[in-house]
């Protein structure tokens, strides 16, 4: 399901190199649902996160957010509650996984964003506005290829749409 492209929420600020073990510790990888995983998000590094996070809140990191494991459990643990993740840069596999499951991940300069700030993210128009600091933050645009996956609401839907298109084209060719 494609989610809303318009997000406003409170900032949970983290530092550089937030790793996947910090997002979801290894012992919870036996869990496979976003609801179960969300209860343990950031448990080791920010124990009150899962009880206090409000739907639409924004997780903000520095460089290399999501480094480490390929566990999709990490973005999945955030997906239910977190409106978007903003970071100066992302680790490769986390970035892919987030895009694949439809968790908005945005590259931008997060240096001046502070914990507790209220931020508005407009994915459609590619704009981020820090309401607390009354400041616009430019975001790095997505390559078109990745934008297509985001617009579809994730990789599975993207693949399904493409398959549908292909079979439609095939049918049209056959009837030609």
């Amino acid at each position, binding site marked *: 399901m494609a989610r809303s492209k318009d997000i406003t929420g409170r900032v949970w600020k983290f530092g550089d*190199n937030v*790793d996947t*073990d*910090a997002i979801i*510790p*290894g*012992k*919870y*990888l*036996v*869990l*496979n649902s976003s609801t179960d995983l969300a209860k343990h998000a950031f448990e*080791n*590094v920010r124990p009150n996160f899962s009880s206090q996070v409000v739907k639409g809140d924004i997780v903000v990191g520095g*460089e*290399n957010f999501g*480094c*480490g*494991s*390929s*566990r*999709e*459990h990490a*973005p*999945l643990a955030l997906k239910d509650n977190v409106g978007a993740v903003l970071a100066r*840069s992302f*680790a*490769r*596999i986390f970035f*892919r*996984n987030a895009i*694949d*499951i439809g968790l908005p991940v945005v590259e931008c300069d997060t240096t001046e964003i502070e914990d507790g700030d209220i931020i508005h993210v407009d994915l459609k128009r590619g704009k981020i506005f820090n309401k607390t600091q009354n400041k616009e933050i430019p975001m790095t645009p997505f*390559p078109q*290829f990745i934008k297509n996956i985001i617009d579809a609401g*994730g*990789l*599975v839907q993207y*693949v*399904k749409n493409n398959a549908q298109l292909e079979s439609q084209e095939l049918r049209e060719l056959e009837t030609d």
Partner: protein
Amino acid sequence: MGQTIAEKIFSNSAGRVVTAGEFVEAAIDVAMIHDITGPLAVKTLHEITDHVWDRTKVIMLFDHQVPADSIDAAVNHIELRKFAKREGILNYDVQEGVCHQVMIEKGHVLPGELVIGADSHTCTYGAVGAFATGVGSTDMGVALASGRLWFKVPDTIAFDIEGKLSRRVYAKDVILTIIGDVSVNGATYKACEFGGEAVAHMDIASRMTLCNMAIEMGGKTGIVAPDKVTASFLEERSVDGDFTLRSDEDATKVLRRYNASDMVPVIAKPHQVDNVVPVTDVEGYHIDQVFIGSCTNGRYEDLKAAAELLKGETVAQGVRMIVIPASRTVFQRALKTGLIDIFTDSGALVEAPCCGPCMGGSFGILGPGEIGLSTSNRNFVGRQGSPMAAVYLCSPATAAASAIYGVIADPRTH
């Protein structure tokens, strides 16, 4: 304009000439799933279609929670077993050991292939000249359904390592030195190509250690151009491949030079893999647990290096040592050659092949305030158990020397 190994492999898999930076849809040669990431991948597959695209190209094994250490783990194993049986795919189940070791050891990966695994250390397979990369479960599910996946063709960093390694300095010290130099995101999105005199002299086991940790500097893969070492390794496994694959002289890549002769035993201090210092800087530091094993350093050659130091010695009082051969094959060989006797005589615990304490989700967990010394690949907060514990990363020789002295020790002085 010439091409890198990565560009050549993606050109072949995409069916057209591609260069770094392009998005491609590429055909997958082999896909690997394990007990942790498998269930979500299968779920995604079933959201798209009923069956895997080619049952001969999918390999499954269980290694993270083996034997099942909880009911949740057992349920995951049951579901995956059913899936493997229904699909007719090869399932090594709990029997063979750590996925990356088994994939290479059994000859499932060939030079020039495009391989994905639902595990970040899939980059290990570059040791035999494949382009192998870790993916999440949705990517894996899509690949299982269609045999294809999208990639951005990566730029290449060529790590040229000249010179010869000194006594008791190993591939683990080389890769930790490199990560300490470039930092934990120094190679993000890049293919890390390892070459030079020192790499030419390395066996496949050492090359696997190098490539394994490419992800710890953000790399998309590690890769070593196949050569006669690769050829003889794969010949022993009765598999053939193209051993001429290499980057063209004029291919675009960033070059980073190192001299192996200057390298010393090093250690990554808590809680980041690039927090690397010479072992001599932390000699005498307290430790509670020593772990030798994992996809990084659980091979026969690693156990042998550790056993050389431990022979006739005992693990110091107050320290517990866990040794886990990375596969059944490694375990059997170590049994036959007496390495396991050396470990058990010294007081170490030897466990059956699996990931063990490396990911902190099974056994060998560190408690609050404890210090672990580990030959694995990550020392993040909470990685091996309590968030109040700390993990240092080192070579098997440094781990063995430290187990004997009961504190962090330099393997060259033993």
